[in-house]
């Protein structure tokens, strides 16, 4: 399937700069709450579970599974179709991504996936996922 990301790179803001710096270095950084123990994604100032401000950055394992997915046949720009998924990381957070390099038939809810930080078609480096072998 063609895979192309249309957009300008993003440098991050007060919440996300460590996240995007991590992506640039090839690692997926999420937050961990020292107060309640939850992992948190996307990054924010207060833990959404206990509202503590004791959030520390940790590097996610990059292992997860597909929570849900869709094959988009229409998009704001770029080539279609492509697979977009919500991936649940083993740390317990959910994030949007694309599943790269897999045929449509092999993609299913529950399938194990692994992080693959890549830049597609001159787009920004982003945390994509591929099916785990």
């Amino acid at each position, binding site marked *: 399937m063609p895979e192309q990301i*249309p957009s300008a790179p*993003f440098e991050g803001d007060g919440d996300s700069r460590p996240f995007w710096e991590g992506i640039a270095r090839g690692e997926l950084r999420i937050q961990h709450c020292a107060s309640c123990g939850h992992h948190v994604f996307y990054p924010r100032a207060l833990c959404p579970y206990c509202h503590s401000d004791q959030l520390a950055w940790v590097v996610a394992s990059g292992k997860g599974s597909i929570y849900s997915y*869709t094959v*988009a*046949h229409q998009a704001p*720009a*770029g080539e279609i179709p492509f697979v*977009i998924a919500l991936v649940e990381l083993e740390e317990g957070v959910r994030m949007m991504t694309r599943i790269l390099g897999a045929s449509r038939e092999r993609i299913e809810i529950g399938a194990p996936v692994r992080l693959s930080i890549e830049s597609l078609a001159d787009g920004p480096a*982003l945390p994509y996922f591929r099916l785990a072998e």
Partner: protein
Amino acid sequence: MASSPRAAIVGVAESDLGRTPDKTVLQLQAQAAKAALDDAGLQFSDVDALFCAGNWAWSPNLMLAEYLGIRPRYSDATNIGGSSFEAHIQHAVAAIEAGLCDVALITYGSTQRSDRSRYRGGRTFRLTEQYEGYFGLPTPVGAYALAAMRHMYEFGTTSEQLAEVAVATRKWATLNEKAMMRDPITIEDVLNSRWIAEPLHLLDCCLVTDGGGAVVVTSADRARHTRKAPVWILGYGVAHTHNTIANMPDLAVHQAAIDSSRAAFAMAGLTPAAMDVVEIYDSFTITVILTLEALGFCGRGEGGAFVSGQRTAPGGPFPMNTNGGGLSYCHPGMYGIFLLIEATRQLRGECGQRQVPNARLALAHGTGGVLSSAATVILGKD
């Protein structure tokens, strides 16, 4: 009834619908507002509260009030997506009850079809958009597709069951001369229409139209002296659970609608089984199935079976989306105001060949964002 109603809907109207390339969003709302006030037997000079949800200006209320020549003493621009107008009912009744206003005008308008503004390419993504936007999910349809895929996985819901909703809704549209799409369709037509975002086909998706609407709400005392019989506001509830689809607590459960409808039924002292006609936001076919489950019309996971066999079509046991819905009548970006307009007309007995016989209690339920927000309104007549 839990307590005597404190306010009523006394006027409703649409503007021109469909494609209105020569009209601005302000013209559409002026047209709808004037017609809704006429419907109520009220004047613009009676209006002392304005409720809008729009993006036509940095302050939609300031621009629209000036354009309409009104000076509200109560102003509310709450925007929680397509359910905003059901939420405005909550706010309007609360404001009337608190003595802060007497005649509330709720309006909406959009020229999104003529503007071709549905998709904006090449934009940058700000704040919490930055974690999703770059992946190119077509919004909002892609988010609803993710929910549909999860619902199918958990409960075995099928594409045929989703299509039942589109087919039944189209049958209602054939009975509404204002509906944009009036040719009957079959389950096979839905399944054979092109993919937008799997598992949603084109005919699982709402229309993209222009259009506007207006609703006039006033106090119980004043409502008894307007032109038509009041449509009493018996209960309402509002909730929102998330903004980005990745943060929806459970993609197979419309939790906001569970919360908003529980509040509305409790306030009205009524149950789902008491409703004679229901108008449910149908941005996509999956929206309806998730909402029917959330509102308690069927059990969790049973929405697909509930709509099967054309149970929601004209003549069926569960009259739903009787104007043809967002799927076939109109959908100018945010549809919630049209749910209130149709529910009011059904209770007044104004719906001609699509009239549900003896409708005394109606439910209007809006859903906004990506299954993010919900607002439920229960209406009744004397």
